[in-house]
C-alpha cells in the first residue's frame, strides 16, 4: 500500500508538465524565426579579396589541421593570364566532405590567409554521398559589389603583400574590362559552336528530308507498280 502515494507523486510531474509552455520549434516551417547564434560554426566559405581574387593559397594547412580528414586541397601555380589569387600559388582543387566534417573549426584557425571561415549555414543534409562533397565552386564566397570573378590580373602596380595589408579595396576598371573581354570571348566561342551545331542540325535535317523524300518516292513507285501488276492480273482473269 505504501507504493500508491509515490505513484501519484510521479504522475503529478507528468500532469503539471502538460500545462507548461512547449519548447518544440517547428522545422522547417518556422526556421527563420530561430536563426543560429552568430558564433555558430556552420558550412565553410572561401573568401575573396576585395577585387574578387581568391584568398586561398592552396597551402593545405586546413587539411592538415582537420581531425576528421574532411578537406582535400591541391595547390597550383598561378599562370600568367590565368590568375586566381595574388602571389604565386592558389588552391586549384578544394573539397570539403560534409559527411566527415564535425564543424570543429580547427581548419579556419589554421588558415594563414583568412581564406577559410565558417558561415551560419547548418542545413548540411542531402540524399547522396557525392552531393555532400562540396567543391570549390560551392564554397567560394559570392561576388560582392566591386568584385569581378577571377581569373584576372592583380590590381596594377600592387604586390601580394599589398593585398594582405588591405591596400587593395576593390577591382579596377582594367580588371573589369579584362573579365568582360574574357566573357565576350567565351560567349562568342559558345555562339560559334552553337552556330556550328545549328548548321550541322540543318544539314542533318536536310539530309533526313532528302532520304525520307526518296523513300516516299520509292515506296510510291513500288505501290504503283504493284497496283499495275495487280490490275494486269485482274485483267487477265
Amino acid at each position, binding site marked *: 500500500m505504501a507504493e500508491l502515494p509515490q505513484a501519484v507523486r510521479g504522475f503529478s510531474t507528468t500532469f503539471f508538465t502538460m500545462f507548461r509552455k512547449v519548447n518544440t520549434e517547428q522545422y522547417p516551417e518556422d526556421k527563420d524565426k530561430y536563426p543560429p547564434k552568430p558564433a555558430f560554426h556552420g558550412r565553410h566559405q572561401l573568401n575573396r579579396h576585395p577585387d574578387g581574387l581568391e584568398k586561398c*593559397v*592552396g*597551402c*593545405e*594547412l586546413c*587539411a*592538415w589541421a582537420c581531425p576528421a580528414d574532411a578537406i582535400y586541397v*591541391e*595547390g*597550383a*601555380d598561378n599562370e600568367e593570364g590565368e590568375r586566381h589569387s595574388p*602571389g*604565386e*600559388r592558389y588552391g586549384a582543387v578544394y573539397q570539403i566532405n560534409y559527411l566527415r566534417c564535425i564543424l570543429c573549426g580547427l581548419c579556419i584557425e589554421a588558415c*594563414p*590567409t583568412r581564406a577559410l571561415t565558417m558561415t551560419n549555414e547548418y542545413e548540411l543534409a542531402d540524399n547522396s554521398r557525392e552531393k555532400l562533397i562540396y567543391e570549390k565552386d560551392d564554397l567560394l564566397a559570392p561576388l560582392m559589389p566591386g568584385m569581378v570573378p577571377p581569373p584576372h590580373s592583380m590590381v596594377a602596380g600592387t604586390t601580394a603583400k599589398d593585398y594582405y595589408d588591405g591596400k587593395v579595396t576593390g577591382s579596377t576598371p582594367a580588371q573589369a574590362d579584362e573579365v568582360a573581354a574574357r566573357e565576350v570571348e567565351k560567349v562568342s566561342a559558345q555562339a560559334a559552336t552553337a552556330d556550328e551545331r545549328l548548321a550541322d542540325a540543318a544539314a542533318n535535317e536536310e539530309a533526313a528530308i532528302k532520304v525520307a523524300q526518296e523513300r516516299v518516292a520509292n515506296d510510291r513507285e513500288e505501290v504503283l507498280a504493284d497496283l499495275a501488276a495487280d490490275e494486269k492480273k485482274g485483267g487477265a482473269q
Partner: protein
Amino acid sequence: MTVTTTASGQASPPVELVTCTIDGIDVSVPKGTLIIRAAEQLGIEVPRFCDHPLLSPVAACRMCLVEIEGQPKPQPACAVAVGDKMIIKTQMTSEVADTAQRGVMEFLLINHPLDCPVCDKGGECPLQNQAMTAGHAESRFEGVKRTFPKPINVSAQILLDRERCVSCARCTRFADEIAGDPFIELLERGAKQQVGTAEDQPFDSYFSGNTVQICPVGALTSADYRFKARPFDLVSTPTTCEHCASGCGLRTDDRRNKVQRRLALEDYEVNEDWNCDKGRFAFRYLTDDRLTHPLIRDEEGDLVPASWPEAINFAAAKLAEVHGKVGVLTGGRLTREDAYAYAKFARVALGSDDIDFRARAASTEEAEFLAAHVAGTGLGLSYADIEKAPIVLLVGIEPEEESPIVFLRLRKAVLAGTAKVAAISSWASPGFAKTGGTVLAAAPGAEAEVLAALGAKAGSLSEAAASVADALREPGAVILVGERLAANLGGISAAVKLAGETGASLSWIPRRAGERGALDAGALAGVLPGGRPITDSGARAEVAAAWGIDEADLPAEPGLQAAGIIEALLTPPVVDEEPAPGTEEDDALIIAETAVESAAAADDEPGDAADAAAEDPNFEAIIEEPEPRISGLVIGGVEINDMPDPEAFRLALKEADVVISLETRLAGVDAYADVVFPVSVDTERSGSYVNWEGRIRPFGKVLRDATTLTDGRVLAMIADELDRPIATEDSNAIRREIDGLGFYSGTRPVPPAVTAPVAATPGSGQALLASWRHLLDLGILQAGEQYLAATQRPSVVRLSAATAAGIGVSDAEDVTVSSESGSITLPLVITDMPDGVVWVPGNSPGSAVNASLSVVPGTVVSIARGGQA
C-alpha cells in the same frame, strides 16, 4: 665476373679509437670523427643545417654549437673532431649550448620570410622543425625583413627563392665537390648574401636535383614539383631507377595514385645520397599517352580495340601458325622478372631460342663475351672496388652520360686520391675532364689497337699510356667496358685479352637498366637463365626440370640474335628445286610432328641451308618446302629508332607474317603489329633490376590500385592458350623460380678472341663517326619533360682543328655529317681529338644518329661545310 677480385678480402688496417664523453656518456669513435657524428652514435641529435655527412664541413650556419669543456666559447659540432678525453655537452645538458643555439635560430629567423604556407618544403623542413625544438616562440625582431623578387631560375628546372636561403652552402658545396659543376656560388655578404649563377651560365648540371633535396629550407625547389603536394599527402615507396644501369635507389612519392616526385634514397653501397636529374625528374612517360586496351588488326588492316580474351586467342592462333620460327626482341628496359618471362616464353611456348634483349648496336662477339663473363655471375666488381682502384680504364663508356653514379664515384675517388682514371676515347668529354684522368685518344674502331698496345707494353707507348699500362698491372686495377664497344669488332676481345695479361678486373656497363637483368634471366640467344649455356646438356636439364618440361623440348642450339633475326626476315628463304608436295594442313601437321627436328634444322643460318642439304641426306625429308627461318616476331617495348638501322628493322617488321607487340604506349612497332597488348610500367608492378655490378635492385609496386597486366602475365595467358604454360603471372613467383634456379656452376664458354678488322681510312671530305648519347636527350622515357629537356647539353658536332680546316670550316659554323641514309647538320666545336674523326651526340635534338644516318660508330661518313645535305 670470373676475372673479378673484390678488395673486400683485404684486411682493413686497425682504426685508432678515441674516447670522449658526450652529455655524460662515454663513447669511443675512430680518430677524426666529428662531434656531431659521435653524438649521432649515441642517439643525441644536435640541430644542424649546413652539415651533411658527404660534404666537407664548413660550419657556415652555426646551428650546431655545443659546449666543450676547457674551451672559452661554444664550438660547432659539425666541424670539430672529437679529441681524446674531450668532455662535450650538447643542448641536452648544457645551458650554454642551448642558449647559443636559440640565439643562432633567432638570427636565422630575422631574415626568414613567413613563406611556409606557400613553400614546398613546408612539412618536411629542418628549419621549421628546429625552430620548434631550438627556437623562441616569440620574435623580438621588429625591423623590415629583407625581400627579393620571387623565385629566380638558376636553371630551367631549379628555382631559387633567395629570402628563404640560410646560406648553409650545401648546394654550392654539392655542385663543387660532388657534381663538379660549380655553376652556383654564394655571392655578396651579410643580409644580402645569396646563391647566384654567372649571368650566361645557368646551373645546367646533370645532378642539380640533388641540391633541392639537400637544401635544408625551401630556397631551392624544382619547377616540376612546385606546389604539387605536401609531404603528408604523399605515400612513399622505395623503388629502383629504371633509367640506367647505375641502379640508384629512389623514393617515389605518390598522391592518390599519381606520382608527384622522386627522390634519391640513401644507399651507401650504390648511389650514396645522390642520383641524377633523369632519374629524379623523368617520370611523365609513366602516365602520358598510355595504351589502355588490347588492339588487334582487323580484315581491313586497321588496329581496333579488342577484349583481352579475344586478343589473347588471336595472338595465340597467330603464333601457332609460325611455331618455331618466331624471334623475340625485348629491348633493354624490362625488369629481370619480365625478361625472364620472355626468355621462358620463347623457349617453352615458341620452341625457339631466337631471342635478344639488345635493341642497339650489338655483335656476336659481345654475346659470346656476355655468356662467358657476365651472365649469371652475380655481384662482382662493386662501386667500392672502383673507388680504390690504382687505375680505372674506361673503354666505350662515358660515365657521366651513360652511368652517372659511376661518374660520381670515380670523381669522388679521384678527388680523394684513392683512384686514377684513364679512358680510351675519341676526345675528353666534359664529364671525363671532371675526373681529371688521361685520355688515350683513339679513333672509333681503333680501341682494340690501343688495348693491345697496353697489353703488350710495346716500346712505342706514350708516357701517359705507359703509366696506364703499369697501373693496370697493380692489384685492384679495373677495366670498365661499355656496351658501345660492341659496335667496334675486336674491341671486347682485346679488353678480355688485356685483363688476362694484366690481371685487372673487367666489368661491363650497359646503358639501360634492364640489360644485365635480361642477360641473367636468359633473354639472349644461347644463354638460358642463370648464365647457363644452351649447348650444355647439364644446364638444359636443370632448366627443363625447373620449368617442368622435357629436356628434349628445349632448343639445344643457340638461336639467332637480334641482327640475325632481322636479317633472316629480310633474306628470302632458300628455294628447293622440287616444289613441295602437300597442302597447307599437311604442312602444319608436319611442323607439329617434327617440331624438334625442324627446330634443330631451322636453327642453321639460312646461308648454310644449301650446304646442309648437300651434307645431310635426310635434309629433304625434313624440309618440305622453302621455309623462312623466321616469320614471326614478339616484341616487348622496343623503340624502332633504338635499332642501329631503323629502316631495316621497319622492313623486317613489314616482312614478318606475325608481329605481337607488348607496349605501354603506341610508339611505332604497333604500325606493323597484328596484336598490341598494353602492359604495366614500373610504378604498377613490383620487380627488380640488376645494376652493372650484378647487384639485384628490387622495387615495390607504387600505385597500389593499378590493375594493368605485366608482360609476364600477358605472355602466360598466351602460353596457356597455346597449351604450353609458363606460369609467369606473378612477379614474386618468378623471383622465387629465378632464385631456385640459381646461377650456372659448370664450365663457362670461352670468351671471344676476335681480331679487329683493319680500320677504314676516311678519304678527304670523310671521317670516322664517333658518337654516344647524352644523359638528357630524346630518349622515350624522358618524353614530355619540358623543364628537364631545357637543361640538355647543346647538340654540336666535333672535329679536330686539322679536319675542320680540311673541309674549310671554323668554330661555330655548321657542319653536315651524312651517310647514304641521311644527314645531320650541327654547329661545330673544334675539339682536341684525332684527325679524321667526327663526333655527334647519339639521340639529341637535331642529331638522331640511328634515324638519320643508320650507321654505327666507327663507320666512314661524309662531312661537309654548311647546311647542305
